[in-house]
């Protein structure tokens, strides 16, 4: 049964220095507030996992929380580059960032394997690309029936996965709808999980296209209204496209980024 906690308590209880942490949400329901809480609690040496390390991870990387990134596409969607990510990879600032790079298909299947309790997944992937040369978590595998060669990738089983959803009930059952990305897989693959939600309600009325994660599959639930901003929560608020442009100007320089972290994250301690 999931515990209903505050965001600060949830992150404090579940995220530890050195952990492998996945924050998922594919363009929709990105758990931004939880990411900033990790910065606020000054976690270090995290291995961050995420298919699309966009602004949420640019912030964590710029704040020096990460030692490694496992990902498949790192950009500011619709805008351009992630400057903190580039600065960490190209110049090791503020700390060197090791990377482990996959394709979306590979990452999605790594989560599927993790959620399924399997050590690896099989896909038709990476053929002819330079990725396997640089990523040692891509190996060939032979079909025992046809002899065909395919790609194998190992399961991802984060220490903790964090997602954002629209609602939970008071028992901790979680409901999300719209683009559901790889969130179910991320939660089921993890040892521990935190779900931030727009609201905790008495009853989860069924929603077309909705999915429910039962309370016994989740560790903690925290009510964090607007917790996906500047990403969006279908049925609650739209994507703040201007923020993505704004982030380009903040993230572009170390100074402007550090000012932002101080003012918008660290000084907000206890505000949730």
């Amino acid at each position, binding site marked *: 049964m999931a515990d209903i906690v505050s965001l600060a308590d949830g992150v404090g209880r579940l995220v530890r220095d050195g952990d492998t942490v996945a924050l998922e949400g594919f363009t929709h329901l990105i758990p931004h507030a939880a990411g900033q809480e990790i910065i606020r609690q000054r976690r270090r040496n995290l291995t961050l996992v995420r298919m699309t390390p966009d602004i949420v991870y640019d912030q964590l990387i710029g704040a020096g929380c990460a030692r490694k990134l496992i990902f498949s596409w790192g950009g500011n969607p619709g805008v351009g580059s992630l400057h903190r990510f580039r600065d960490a990879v190209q110049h090791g600032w503020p700390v060197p960032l090791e990377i482990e790079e996959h*394709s979306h298909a590979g990452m999605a*299947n790594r989560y599927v394997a993790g959620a399924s309790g399997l050590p690896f997944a099989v896909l038709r992937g990476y053929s002819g690309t330079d990725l396997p040369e640089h990523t040692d978590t891509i190996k060939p595998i032979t079909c025992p029936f046809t002899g065909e060669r395919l790609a194998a990738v190992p399961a991802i089983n984060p220490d903790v996965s964090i997602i954002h959803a629209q609602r939970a009930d008071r028992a901790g059952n979680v409901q999300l709808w719209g683009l559901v990305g790889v969130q179910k897989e991320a939660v089921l693959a993890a040892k521990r999980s935190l779900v931030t939600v727009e609201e905790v309600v008495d009853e989860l009325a069924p929603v077309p296209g909705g999915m429910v994660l039962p309370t016994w599959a989740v560790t903690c639930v925290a009510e964090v209204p607007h917790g996906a901003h500047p990403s969006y929560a279908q049925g609650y608020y739209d994507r703040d496209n201007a923020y993505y442009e704004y982030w380009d100007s903040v993230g572009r320089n170390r100074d402007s980024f550090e000012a932002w972290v101080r003012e918008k994250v660290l000084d907000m301690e206890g505000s949730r």
Partner: protein
Amino acid sequence: MSTTTESEATYTSDEMMSIAAARVLRGDQRCFVGIGLPSTAANLARRTHAPDLVLVYESGTLGSKPGRLPASIGDGILAETADAVISVPEVFNYWLQPGRIDVGFLGAAQLDRFGNINTTVIGTDYANPKVRLPGAGGAPEIAASCREVFVVVRQSRRSFVEKVDFVTSFGHGRGRGDRERLGLPGAGPTLVITDLGVFRPDPETSELVLSQLHPGVEVADVREATGWELKVSPELSSTPEPTEAELAALRALKEAK
């Protein structure tokens, strides 16, 4: 880069590129749409000559019919207007991988003579890149599994190179037969649309050859913007000018909120 031709209609080379890219799509196709230029072209096609074109986005939507350009690959409008919304693993495993998609429509940071695509790093030292790009996303498997691949890219000596620094998505390798040797099911890049013209792989060598020039562009301009010794098709043709209807539809799409 923004140019104006001598024709009556005034349009930019980016507009010409998007319109040329839209024209190559047909209403009976399913198109896996990358964000940015490909998404503009695919949505324009739906608004003009190909209203039945099925758009598939890697965020998990089948048959999206957005009334405006999506701001990102996971814009809410893609889910709200889709025939079906599915998980990301399902998009890749059940829909892309088995070859159900006719056209993969991709962008590129670097594209080479054989249609290989780089969106990973500029510079040949992966560990210490000159520029770190976003990475692969869905592209490697889109390039492998779609029946054919169309690439839309702004052309320059920086983007059109002899050999990409990093093969993120396999095109035709180092020439004809390389895809077959790898067992790749799709035909790979069969069209490259830029702001200068249109390129197709030579049927003998799979090298990209200039096959079509946009209005007002000379072959010399294209050579100037190509990082290899460019071959020109003997049947070189001219891209018809954008029609008023195409331009109006493109601009309406970009302005709609």
